[in-house]
């Protein structure tokens, strides 16, 4: 089987398995799986910047939150329908990524990390400061304002588990397809070149700034799509999702699954989700275990799970 066939078969297979999973999962894990798929879409967006362009951000919660508030506020205040709200969320995240990029991409490496963190914190504090609009860290519920999704004659209510699950799967599949298409395109090759050696890539004819800005815009758009999807599917919008913790999470998920792999974000998000879920049943200091898991990961599997698999056995894995 040729490499591109194998790649296609693997990713379609994973999506098919996720589709079938909903028929066998018990209710509790059913909801978890929907949540994991939305968060994995976020991690996939993060991975475009870190894994395929080599830029580490600690402010990605601002894009997730831009999508979340961009979708949630118009529903809550104006009663806007889900598709339009989703579109506004993505537009908000993409615009924010472009504006942020024009300023922050003058820096790179650790400076970029710090600048991104400052922007992320600024947005987080803004969600608290304007709490008469955003309702701050208390947040708001959108479900009573959200009209069901009309699909032909059927009305799909967002509270129904099957609707939740399949829309989450659709969102994840879209971001998987987007990241895979980007990775396999000529532009993905340039991004990987910038990750490896930016100066070399510039001398091979590529204006690296434009490619980094484009990558950041895609990353911001995917993160915002996940944020908007989260608001609509799980009904809650609050400033917790703009906090630094939600900038650290996608980094952990991507690291655990394997940065610079297409499926890594899904694997990392699922494992970390269940680690936190299991541990927090025992103790409230679950972040301690998350930290220990991260240290072990960096020590023994710095490439993450799929990165290690790729190095050892599956060199064709994108």
């Amino acid at each position: 089987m040729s490499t591109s066939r194998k790649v296609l078969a693997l990713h379609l297979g994973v999506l098919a398995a996720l589709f079938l999973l909903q028929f066998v999962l018990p209710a509790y894990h059913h909801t978890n799986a929907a949540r994991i798929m939305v968060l994995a879409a976020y991690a996939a967006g993060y991975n475009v910047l870190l894994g395929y362009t080599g830029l580490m951000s600690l402010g990605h919660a601002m894009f997730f939150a831009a999508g979340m508030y961009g979708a949630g506020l118009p529903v809550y205040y104006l009663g806007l329908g889900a598709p339009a709200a989703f579109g506004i969320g993505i537009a908000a995240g993409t615009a924010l990524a472009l504006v942020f990029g024009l300023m922050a991409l003058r820096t790179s490496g650790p400076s970029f990390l710090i600048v991104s963190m400052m922007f992320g914190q600024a947005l987080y504090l803004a969600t608290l400061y304007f709490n008469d609009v955003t309702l701050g860290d208390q947040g708001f519920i959108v479900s009573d304002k959200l009209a069901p999704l009309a699909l032909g004659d059927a009305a799909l209510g967002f509270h129904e588990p099957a609707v939740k699950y399949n829309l989450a799967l659709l969102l994840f599949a879209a971001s998987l397809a987007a990241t895979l298409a980007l990775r396999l395109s000529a532009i993905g090759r340039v991004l990987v070149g910038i990750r490896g050696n930016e100066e070399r890539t510039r001398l091979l004819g590529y204006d690296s700034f434009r490619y980094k800005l484009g990558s950041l815009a895609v990353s911001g758009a995917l993160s915002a799509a996940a944020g908007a999807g989260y608001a609509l599917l799980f009904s809650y919008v609050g400033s917790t999702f703009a906090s630094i913790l939600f900038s650290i999470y996608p980094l952990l998920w991507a690291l655990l699954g394997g940065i610079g792999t297409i499926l890594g974000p899904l694997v990392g998000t699922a494992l970390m989700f269940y680690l936190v879920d299991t541990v927090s049943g025992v103790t409230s200091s679950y972040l301690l275990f998350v930290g220990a898991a991260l240290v072990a990961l960096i020590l023994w599997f710095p490439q993450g799970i799929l990165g290690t698999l790729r190095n050892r056995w599956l060199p064709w894995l994108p």
Partner: protein
Amino acid sequence: MAAVAPILATQSLTRRFGGLTAVDAVSLEVGRGEIRAIIGPNGAGKTTLVGMICGRHEPSSGRILYDGRDITRLRPWQRLRLGIVYTFQVTSIYRGLTCYENVALPAQRGLMQGFAARFAPGEAKVAERVRAALEAVGLAGFEVQRADELAYGHQRLLEIAMALAAEPRLLILDEPTQGLAEGEIAALCELVRRIARAATVLVIEHNMQVVLELAERVTVMDAGAILAEGTPAEVERHPDVQRAYLGR
């Protein structure tokens, strides 16, 4: 002025790093199709000079003319598109990628003109260029090999294949024979001569044997300035050169 306009001319090109003047008012002309060697002791400013020509460093003052056109303000990626291609002194391949991917990056550049082609330049055409470049340097069949698993001599060749895939009109080689074995050096000279049939070659080189064998003209630099210029034989006899460079 020569009868044929030079492909490259620098006019009083200067580069200062803080208090140090690395390149001091260098005016250099390279003729079309020529193989020109630049020699000089370490710290003479050779790499900084070619760095300004390919756009790695911005000049402090002076001008660079390429094909009669002022390119002093052009960015490195714009210069590559005009055919100015630089290979690094320290091997700068993408270590974790295969040879194919290493060469495909410069190979696709020329095909990415226009909006649609930027996304899909056509992998068949890219593959054709990659194959041709790898074959030209003698690395045919190494496509799926990871670059960091190649022997050192092969890594140098891969670097040159990357440059060839970018379709150079002015190829700048920065110490291409450094660290190569004797047999590999002879093969590299042969390769450079073949490349020079289609392009102008500017080569920084320490190995005098290689310089004498390859270059049509030699420019000698010392302390940021041009000390002498001429045919290899003329330069070798030049008393200043013997003092500064050959240590006689």
